[in-house]
């Protein structure tokens, strides 16, 4: 499709403009000092953006919905639980916090396990209506959230301050070493993900049609859920939770590109993510002068968009 090609090029140009703007705008102090740090931040945003887009789009394809995302289903709350438990039981000076790799690994493993147990329950059959799933996700999020708050009030206030910085998405203190690991994971996921692009297209036709066309459906669903959780866990462990980003970019991509091809949809969503993150970070740093964080901006816009989608969905269902 020619028009979709044009649209993708348009998004790519926009993304590049955002990156250049963020990279070069108003560099104070030494260029040699500031520029490499900005490049790392941009790289972190690109990695996060792609990981979130990819995992959200494939998740929505296999669950046949456009409202649930791994983040909404409780992945973000689980991240908070892991971090709070670590601070609660081990403390901010423990190896689990000080050793970045250990913390990163523990967070990823805990989130992936949580996701797999949850999905095994929820998506084994297609019999639960989407609103029930959404409700379960929300309640689970609230439950975990309350649990976290309970632990947080018991923690030493100084420890709590240190914990709090972990619980907001931030690109400012991304460690380069972790970024390389995240890139590695992303690369592996992509090598697998590339082979299954056309299978995803078929799976979007539903279980029965996909099996008819020779897809090993139930096994593919499990594989893709694992892939999706690993990616979302990696991005969350790297920068913290950005709950609504996946939802926004996936839906904007469906709306804008109007195609069933996952290669196009995922590419589109990834570019929109990069624009939202890098552009948003630019706004947060230079317009709002760091008085607000990017996750606040994105969750504000995303929350409104989420309500809009819910209303639209319920209207078309009714």
């Amino acid at each position, binding site marked *: 499709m020619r028009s979709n090609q044009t649209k993708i090029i348009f998004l790519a140009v926009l993304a590049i403009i955002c990156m250049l703007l963020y990279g070069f705008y108003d560099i104070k102090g030494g260029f040699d000092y500031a520029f490499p740090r900005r490049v790392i931040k941009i790289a972190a945003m690109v990695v996060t953006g792609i990981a979130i887009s990819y995992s959200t789009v494939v998740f929505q394809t296999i669950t046949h919905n456009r409202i649930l995302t791994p983040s909404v289903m409780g992945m973000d709350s689980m991240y908070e639980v892991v971090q709070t438990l670590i601070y609660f039981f081990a403390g901010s000076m423990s190896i689990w916090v000080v050793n970045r790799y250990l913390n990163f690994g523990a967070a990823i493993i805990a989130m992936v396990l949580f996701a797999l147990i949850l999905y095994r329950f929820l998506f084994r059959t297609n019999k639960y209506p989407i609103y029930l799933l959404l409700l379960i996700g929300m309640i689970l999020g609230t439950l975990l959230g309350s649990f976290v708050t309970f632990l947080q009030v018991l923690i030493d206030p100084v420890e709590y301050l240190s914990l709090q910085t972990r619980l907001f998405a931030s690109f400012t203190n991304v460690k380069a070493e972790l970024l390389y690991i995240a890139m590695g994971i992303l690369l592996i996921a992509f090598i697998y993900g590339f082979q299954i692009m056309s299978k995803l297209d*078929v799976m979007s*036709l*539903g*279980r029965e049609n996909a*099996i008819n*066309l*020779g897809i090993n459906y139930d096994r593919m669903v499990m594989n893709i859920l694992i892939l999706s959780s690993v990616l979302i866990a990696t991005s969350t462990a790297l920068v913290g939770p950005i709950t609504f980003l996946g939802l926004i970019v996936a839906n904007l991509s469906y709306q804008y590109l109007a195609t069933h091809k996952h290669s196009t949809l995922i590419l589109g969503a990834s570019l929109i993510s990069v624009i939202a993150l890098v552009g948003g970070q630019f706004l947060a740093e230079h317009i709002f002068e760091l008085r607000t964080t990017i996750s606040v901006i994105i969750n504000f816009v995303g929350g409104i968009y989420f309500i809009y989608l819910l209303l639209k969905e319920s209207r078309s269902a009714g």
Partner: protein
Amino acid sequence: MIEIKELTKRFGKKNVVDKVSLEIQPRAITSIIGPNGAGKSTLLSMVSRLLDADTGEVLLDQRTVKKWKSEEFAKRVSILKQSNYTNVRITVRDLISFGRYPYSKGRLTEEDKKHVEQAIDYMNLHDLQDQFIDELSGGQRQRAFIAMVIAQDTDYVLLDEPLNNLDMKHSVQIMKILRKLVDELGKTVVIVLHDINFASVYSDRIIALKNGKLVKNGPTKEIINSESLREIYDMHIPVQEQNGCRICVYFNSHA
């Protein structure tokens, strides 16, 4: 050749399909009929590996379906279920092209394009081919999905109530196309039907299920008579001959 041996499926305590054994005759239209809840769709789902059987097995060319690789099976047997809602933005032509997926994994060859073109011809979808399926009426969408199955070009075509949502004109059109698939291309069609008159007029053989059990299995003319129909449906159904077709006139029958 498809053989079904002692096939059983339980939902809870109820045997929805109960020890059904039969053979599907090749190069013929076989209709599966029976009252609601007789297990027709469940039987078809098990034959097409959409559903696992609790006991018993289905053999395709003497090999149990579980041993077939799914993608090889997809080149021999196709299945279309009743509900084909979809919220995917996909055009009719792209949907039909999916029928070639078992062969080309998404990259259409010249051969594949020929099959897609043929399926569009068969289902007469030229005018609709560039429309998105979520913009079509129920009947048009049904035709698009059937075209996908035709493009899949399998020896066996299994259809679960394909006439649902269709008006008389399109129902007749589809049954005639199925007839052509059998008579011209030598396919084997198995179809779940609610309207016994379509079964009577267009099928070669009829399988009747009731409460999960096989009650009748034979050539159409041996089954479309008041006696057999009473056994299947528990009601008196007069059968009249009209231009060589046997028509069941059940509209004001007394049980």
